[in-house]
């Protein structure tokens, strides 16, 4: 492929990038949800899972940088599509309506840039809160199989037992569902892999996928808020600065 023929920034290239990175990000959130379901088992299961992830060694920083690159590529291609959209029709219609029928234009498809922006802000906050949150040095330490490990479970439970954080996470999860409702099938359509039969299937599957992810990610904070044992029961004294 020579440089003159490969145009990643053509109208098709932008969507190809966006769809492909979107598919990898969807795979990530599936894995993220699956791993976080250990929260339902208890402190040792979740801390053990977190510790197992950290012991993967060199793969961890590679995965972190890879995920960051995926997010950046997804955001940059989405913003490029959005700015083309703004430039392509500078005088707007006085009245706009969907014709229904075969149209897949919904509140979900029209709000992708907004829900995406919220998810980006959320992501920064989420990583700051947990990845770079208090660790062993700040007293978030527990003993697992005779070794001191970071007590991430305590941090998570403390966070979600705060009603403000709970409401924030619930709201973002619903917006993630909005994003996935259009994003799932649209990613495959952007790659050009759908046929008339698989297109209908992918569109329906997108609805199911969005609902499953929303239910999954809603369950965790709600469970931790209503059902998880208070941290004092584990012999941990919360230190309020």
């Amino acid at each position, binding site marked *: *492929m020579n440089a003159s023929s490969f145009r990643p920034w053509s109208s098709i290239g932008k*969507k190809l990038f966006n769809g492909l990175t979107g598919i990898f990000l969807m795979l990530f959130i599936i894995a993220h949800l699956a791993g976080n379901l250990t929260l339902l088992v208890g402190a040792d299961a979740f801390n053990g899972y977190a510790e197992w992830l950290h012991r993967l060694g060199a793969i961890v920083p590679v995965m972190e940088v890879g995920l960051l690159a995926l997010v950046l590529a997804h955001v940059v291609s989405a913003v490029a599509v959005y700015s083309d959209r703004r430039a*392509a029709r500078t005088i707007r*219609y006085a009245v706009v309506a969907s014709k229904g029928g075969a149209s897949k*234009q919904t509140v979900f498809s029209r709000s992708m840039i907004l829900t995406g922006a919220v998810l980006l802000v959320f992501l920064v906050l989420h990583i700051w809160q947990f990845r770079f949150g208090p660790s062993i040095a700040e007293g978030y330490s527990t003993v697992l199989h005779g070794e001191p490990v970071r007590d991430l479970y305590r941090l998570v439970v403390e966070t979600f037992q705060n009603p403000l954080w709970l409401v924030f996470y619930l709201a973002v999860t619903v917006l993630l569902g909005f994003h996935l409702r259009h994003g799932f*099938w649209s990613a495959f359509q952007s790659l050009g892999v759908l046929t008339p039969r698989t297109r209908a299937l992918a569109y329906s599957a997108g609805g199911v996928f969005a609902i499953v992810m929303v239910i999954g990610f809603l369950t965790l904070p709600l469970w931790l808020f209503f059902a998880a044992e208070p941290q004092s029961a584990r012999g941990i004294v919360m230190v309020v600065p």
Partner: protein
Amino acid sequence: MMSTNGTRSYSLRIWRQNDNSSPGALVEYRVSDINPQMSFLEMLDHLNDTLERKHEVPIAFESDCREGICGTCGLMIDGRPHGPAAGLTTCGLRMRQFADGATITIEPFRANAFPVLRDLVVDRQAFDRIIQAGGYISVNCGQAPEANSMLIGKDVAEAAMDSAACIGCGACVASCPNASASLFVGAKIRQLALLPQGQAERSRRALRMVEAMDREGFGDCSNHGECEAACPKGISIESIAVMRREYMRTLLARG
């Protein structure tokens, strides 16, 4: 509101604009004595007739065949290209679709690649330039070849025809939230990719047409699928998927 002879009256909000360099605005008009069986364009003819009698400038709009095959008469009617009915061009739309006394907003097809020439008339030559870039086949001059020398299966011919049904009206662009021309471009690419006559230029067609589409300043396709609903010929977004496949195929073929 209903008159004794069964005719209807409407309030119209119509986009008026002198030329591309001057600003436009929606202007309100009243029409009455409209027979519900009249076409939408006949209703506009009727309005223009009354405007001319009052020595006012008639509203510029395009039409040619008035039987749904030329693709010139596209109007944005209450926010939908060709009005509320599916599978119709503006000329095929009848006034019985609109309740007596209704307010109808009529705007030109909007995209920066379709500059307004006057009132409701837009310049769609961007489509012609995209077709010139690759939406053609090469044939030798002279007598038509013997019909049975090139066999095409019924299913292939039908599939190609589904895309060839495009009349180039621009409803896909008009309805697209991104003002993308992907359905128009995809329809031509799919039609020619399916047929043996289209194979000669296949290795470069998609690339050239997509480049031309981007040059004209159309937006990118975000898969809203509104174009398929708006298309008076019901062309499916399958054409857009094929365009993407053909585009990648072209890139790979170039190596």
